[in-house]
């Protein structure tokens, strides 16, 4: 259990540093990549730090739905 939290933490830090490094890259796809990395971090925190992976499917789906809708709306605008 503790091992899962440590692995999640290391992955979250790596994803944050990767997001920060994309700052200087000039590419049209960068905003989408940054948002995707952010969505992965969001899932990491909610499922592993907040223990949502143990919760009822309703709560897991609600978080995934919220994230998907937000990402789609932001990318469509």
């Amino acid at each position, binding site marked *: 259990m*503790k091992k899962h939290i440590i692995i999640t933490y290391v992955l979250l830090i790596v994803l944050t540093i990767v997001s920060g490094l994309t700052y200087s890259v000039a590419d049209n796809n960068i905003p989408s990549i940054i948002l995707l990395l952010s969505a992965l971090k969001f899932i990491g925190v*909610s499922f592993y*730090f*907040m*223990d949502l992976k*143990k919760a009822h499917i309703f*709560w897991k789906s609600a978080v995934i739905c919220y994230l998907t809708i937000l990402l789609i709306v932001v990318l469509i*605008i």
Partner: protein
Amino acid sequence: MNIQQIDAKNIYFPPGGILMWIIIFLELITFGMGIVAMVYCGKQEPNLFHESRLLLNPVYGVINTIILLTSGFCMAISVLYLKTGNKQKSKKFLLITMLFGMLFLIVKTIEYKAKIDIGQSINYNLFFTFYWLLTLFHVIHIIVGLVILGSTYFGLVKEKTSIEDFESSATFWHMCDLIWLLIFPVIYLFF
């Protein structure tokens, strides 16, 4: 302290409690609408938003993200220790969590001071209006979170805090991480 196992698979008992999750969704929807409004305005005035975004130092954003994630990690470990009955280690990690929360506020204060000193306040332009509103609203959540964690810590010392209360406090603190993970990329990197 009352330590009992709650069936988290039950729809009415998500980790942290159903009321806390209702609050979390309300907060996420509120910040989500702010983010959508910012992106919409950014698409109307792409040059203004791009040039304004370049005035921000993303290093502050990355450092604050790492600080908040570390704080969230310590909080998760603290909950884990409390569930296994190791109260001393749980208290230690809770203190470290609060320390990182305060560090976040210090870094944010330094960033805000630098912005105010060069006149980039809430009225500077539309980008900075969103920047100040979203980040300040988040800072208020961090301050409230620190007060909740402080009260939980003293409750733990006096053996008045139940594991459910502790988990609810932790869930509120993680919510601050979640909000930051949404606003950080949009403000510092997106435009």
